[in-house]
Structure formats: structure tokens, C-alpha cells
């Protein structure tokens, strides 16, 4: 078990390192750097001034040295300095992680609270009204880009009913009620797309598990089928669903960028979009790496949990160790 955990953590660290190299190389090797963007706004700048600006930003140093100082900075808490506002990147990111984490977690919570009971009920009453509706809903949810879900919500709740504001952010500490009002639409839009894969997968695996001999045995002993599914099949089907929940976090991390942009939610997503428009590599590389790290970390946690929760896996590792 220790060996398994160690190997898995090591793999994640390696993935993260490779990801950082990839992000860095893609941003540096490709054409168009922040100096060109900066200069584009100013008239009459000559080549020597451009070279001087590159030097000032450290862009003229060899690539591996730039990478080295970026990574060294990451470890010592200095994430670099924005090419535009000249603010330290960690200050720019600092206040934005909270709102993004809050939004992602609320969305995930909504998705799970809707998907899990619906899937279990559908499996207990296969081909019933709920099952059919859930299948249709899941196939729609897979197809709706999060920004369209957001637009649909805005049309209903902001344009037609005028119940909810379309943009803004208030910290949960200063005004919990207003925070709830503001987070409702973005979180629901994200949850809508996150809900579908969880619902679909859990329903599918419940369907498979309910064919298992032990369910037939339970039925043979006089247990009603819905009860057998709820009591015996569900715990077994929930474990593999964990993997899908982990993957959903990845989807959410992508979706959150667009959703934050729509609702002017001051999180990492809007920061990323802003720095894409400005080609502010210093901000972009670190915030993207952050998002990737969050995803890699979630996958790691899910994998490790899986090892703890699934007795079969534990038995297998014990056997192979013996």
C-alpha cells in the first residue's frame, strides 16, 4: 500500500513537472510576446528600445534559465511580476483563488446532490418516467456548453423574472445572502454540465451491478428489487463513480473560466482570460499551472481514495506484496 501511494504521488509530481515545462515552452517558443503587445500601443519605438524592454523583463535570457528562475520562484512564493501592472503575480492571484474554489465546490455539490439520488431512483425504477427524463437530461447536459446553460439561466432568472443579478461578487463573509444570490446562477450553470456525466455513469454502473448474482440472490431471498438495488448495488456502483467525479472537476476547471467571464466573477478564470488578451505570460503561465495542478491533485486524491474504498484493490495489492 505504501509503495502504491508513493508511486502514485511520484507520478503526479512528474506529471506536474512535465506540465510546467509544456506550458512554459508553448508560451515562449511561439510567436508574439508581451513586448510586441506593449509596443503595439506606442508610436515610434525603435529596435534598441524593444531590446531594452526585453532585457528589462528578462526575456532575452536563455530559455532554460528563464524556466529555472520561474520554478525557483514558485517554490519560494515569488510567482513573478506582471508585465503590465508590474504587480507581483502572487498578489494578483491571491484574492482570486477563493472565489474560484467557492464557485467550483458549490457547483460540484449541486451536481452530486442532483445526480446521485436521481441515478439511484432511476435504477430502482428502470424505464420509468424519471429514468427516461434523466437519460434525456444527461444527453442534453453532455451537449450544452456551460456558457449556453448560463445564458438560459440568465434569460429566465435575470431577463424574464428579474430575480437574480447577472454580474458581481460579494464575499461570503461580508454578505452571505447576497453572495448566495450571486453564486446561484454561475454555480447552477457549471453544475448543469457537471451533473450529466456523473448521472450517466452512475446510472450505467448501477444497471450493470444490478445484473450481478448477489442482487439475484437478495431477490431470491425475498428482498424487493428496488431495495436490493438501493442497499446492495449502490455502494458498489458509487466507488467507480468517484473516478468520474474526479474527471468532472477537470471539466469544471475548464468551464469555470468561461462562466467567470460571463458573470464577471473575480476568480482565476477571469484573470486567465484577461492575461490571454494582454499576452501577460508571467500571469498566464502561473495561473494555468495552478489550474493544471488542481486537476492533477484531484485525480491523485481520487485514485488514493479509490484504493482505500475498494476492498478488492486493497486485497490485490496485499496479494502481490505477499
Amino acid at each position, binding site marked *: 500500500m505504501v509503495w502504491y501511494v508513493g508511486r502514485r504521488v511520484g507520478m503526479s509530481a512528474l*506529471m506536474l513537472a*512535465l*506540465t510546467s515545462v*509544456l*506550458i512554459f515552452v*508553448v*508560451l515562449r517558443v*511561439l*510567436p*508574439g510576446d508581451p513586448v510586441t503587445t506593449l509596443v503595439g500601443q506606442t508610436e515610434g519605438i525603435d529596435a534598441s528600445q524593444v531590446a531594452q524592454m526585453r532585457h528589462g523583463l528578462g526575456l532575452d535570457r536563455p530559455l532554460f534559465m528563464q524556466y529555472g528562475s520561474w520554478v525557483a520562484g514558485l517554490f519560494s512564493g515569488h510567482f513573478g511580476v506582471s508585465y503590465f501592472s508590474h504587480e507581483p503575480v502572487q498578489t494578483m492571484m491571491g484574492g482570486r483563488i477563493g472565489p474560484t474554489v467557492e464557485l467550483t465546490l458549490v457547483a460540484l455539490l449541486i451536481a452530486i446532490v442532483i445526480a446521485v439520488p436521481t441515478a439511484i431512483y432511476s435504477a430502482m425504477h428502470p424505464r420509468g418516467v424519471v429514468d427516461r427524463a434523466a437519460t434525456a437530461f444527461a*444527453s*442534453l447536459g*453532455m*451537449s*450544452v*456548453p*456551460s*456558457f*449556453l446553460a448560463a*445564458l*438560459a439561466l*440568465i*434569460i429566465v432568472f435575470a*431577463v424574464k423574472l428579474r430575480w437574480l443579478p447577472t454580474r458581481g461578487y460579494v464575499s461570503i463573509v461580508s454578505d452571505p445572502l447576497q453572495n448566495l444570490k450571486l453564486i446561484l446562477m454561475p454555480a447552477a450553470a457549471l453544475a448543469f454540465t457537471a451533473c450529466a456525466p456523473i448521472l450517466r455513469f452512475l446510472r450505467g454502473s448501477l444497471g450493470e451491478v444490478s445484473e450481478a448474482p448477489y442482487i439475484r440472490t437478495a431477490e431470491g431471498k425475498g428482498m424487493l428489487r428496488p431495495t436490493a438495488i438501493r442497499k446492495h448495488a449502490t455502494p458498489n456502483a458509487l466507488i467507480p463513480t468517484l473516478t468520474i467525479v474526479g474527471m468532472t472537476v*477537470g*471539466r469544471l*476547471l*475548464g*468551464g469555470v*473560466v*468561461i462562466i467567470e*467571464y*460571463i458573470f464577471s466573477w473575480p476568480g482565476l478564470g477571469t484573470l*486567465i*482570460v484577461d492575461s*490571454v*488578451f494582454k*499576452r501577460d505570460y508571467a500571469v*498566464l503561465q502561473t495561473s*494555468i499551472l495552478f*489550474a*493544471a495542478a488542481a*486537476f*492533477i491533485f484531484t*485525480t491523485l486524491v481520487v485514485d488514493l481514495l479509490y484504493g482505500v474504498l475498494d476492498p478488492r484493490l486493497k486485497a490485490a495489492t496485499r496479494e502481490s506484496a505477499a
Partner: protein
Amino acid sequence: MSATMAEVPSTRPRDDVGELPATQRLLTRLMHRPLGVVSLAILVLLVVSAVFAPLIAPHSPNAISVVDRFHGPSSAHWFGTDELGRDLLSRLLFGGRIALGISFGAAAISTILGVLWGFFAGQAGGLLDELLMRTVDVVMAIPVILFALVLVAAFGSDLPTLIVIIGLLLTPASARLARSAVLAEIRSDYYRAAVALGIPRVRILFGELLPNAAPVIIARTALAAADAMIIEASLSFIGLGVPPPSASWGTLVKDGYSQIFHALYYVVFPGAVILLAIWALNTLGDQLQELLDPRTSR
């Protein structure tokens, strides 16, 4: 290697239905499923209307007419007009050329590169396989839309660039699938027999294995096209799509969103079209996959 020369002639053990090639057989069976027919029909309709946009569009997509600003849907402008008095139906028809072009182009790139990548990794095995598949893992560790943002920031977003960027981003997932297809077939008798006969690997892979794996790959291509459309629409919605005056469906949604409080139809029509197209592609892909799953195909 247990296959003897006498067993060689039956190279396609999975052929159980008629003499039709795998792909054609799949299409016939797809036609017996309501969702398959509906999704295919929607796609054909969208593609035809995009291809013949110059012939069917009632107006020029970029013709500005200030007096006709923000007309709601009417017989003259079925889908209404925008802030410059341009006909929205015409803009949607022409936008389809961009949205569908990028979607199909990117899906094609991801399939072709993915098949090459996955086939190569799967049949090479060993360290090379490990290396190629770990690369897939790393690329897939970053949510696609984030990667797309970085690449668009660096490369810009004109039509060919977007096709290549999105196509490359969807390649790893295709590669993973293509590799598993190779691994599934590589243990089959016909593959071993062909190797034993001394047929060059490349010919076995692309002459024998590819046709057998084609249905799986086609299903993946449909799903990749749906993903590509979501990515492109999202980028366009943020304002990082194909530059104006041409407007993709996502760009139209963006423009419509900015007028959402006084011209609701403006955002609704392009949004609905995007939804329809993505739903059709996803459903088609799912239907194909279901047909291929031996547990549900009969």
C-alpha cells in the same frame, strides 16, 4: 505463434453479418435507430445549409442597414436583425460554414494524427509506447479550454490556426482510443497470421486493422467534432474566435448576449443552433458507440 497456414484464409473472424464492409454495415444498422436517423438528419441539414449558404441566404451576411436595426423576427428577417441591421438568418447560415468547418476540420486532424500516434504506440510497445502514452496523459492533464486559450494567445485565431489548434488538442484522446483498438486487434488470430506470413506491419495496420477498427474510430470522430464545436463556440464567445466581420455561431451568441435585455431573439437563435449541432454530433457518436458495444448491439 500457433496459426498454421491452413487457418490463414479466415482473416476477418468478426464478420458475422453479410459481406458488407464494417463501416457500411454500421451505417445500415444506424438507420434502424430513431435517434441515429434524427441526429444524422439534423447534421445533414446543417451541413447542406452551410455549404449552400450563398445560394439560400436571403441577404448578404455583412450588409449593414442602419434603418433596420434590431428588428424582431418577421417575414423579411426570419430571425430578426442585429445592432447594425444585418440579417441574422444569413449571418447564421454563413456562421455555420465557420463553426462546422472548424468542427469537422479539427475532428479530422485529431482522428488522423490520433490514429497514427495510437497505432504507432500500440504496435511499438515497450518504452516507446510508455513514452507516447505518458505524453498523452500530460497533455490531457490540462483542461482543453485552458490549453486552447494559451495557444490562441500565442498563435492568434484565424480560421486555419483555430482548426489546427483545436485539432491538436483533441488528438491525445483520439490517440488513446486508437491505441486501445490496436491492442484489441493485435492479439487476434488474423493479425498473428498476417505477421507470420511476412506481410509488412504498415500494410497490416492500415490495410487490415484500420478497416476493422474503423467503426470505433468513426464514433470517436463524431464525439471529437462535438468537442471541437464546444471549444470553438466557447472561444468565440469570449471574443477569441475568428476575427470580424465573419462571425461564427459563438460570436453571434456573444454579440446577442450584449443585447440580451432588449433583443432576446438575437441570442436565442444562434444559441439554439449551437445546441442542436452539438447534440446531434454527440448523439450520433453515442449511437455509433452503442451499436459497437456487443452487449447492446443486438
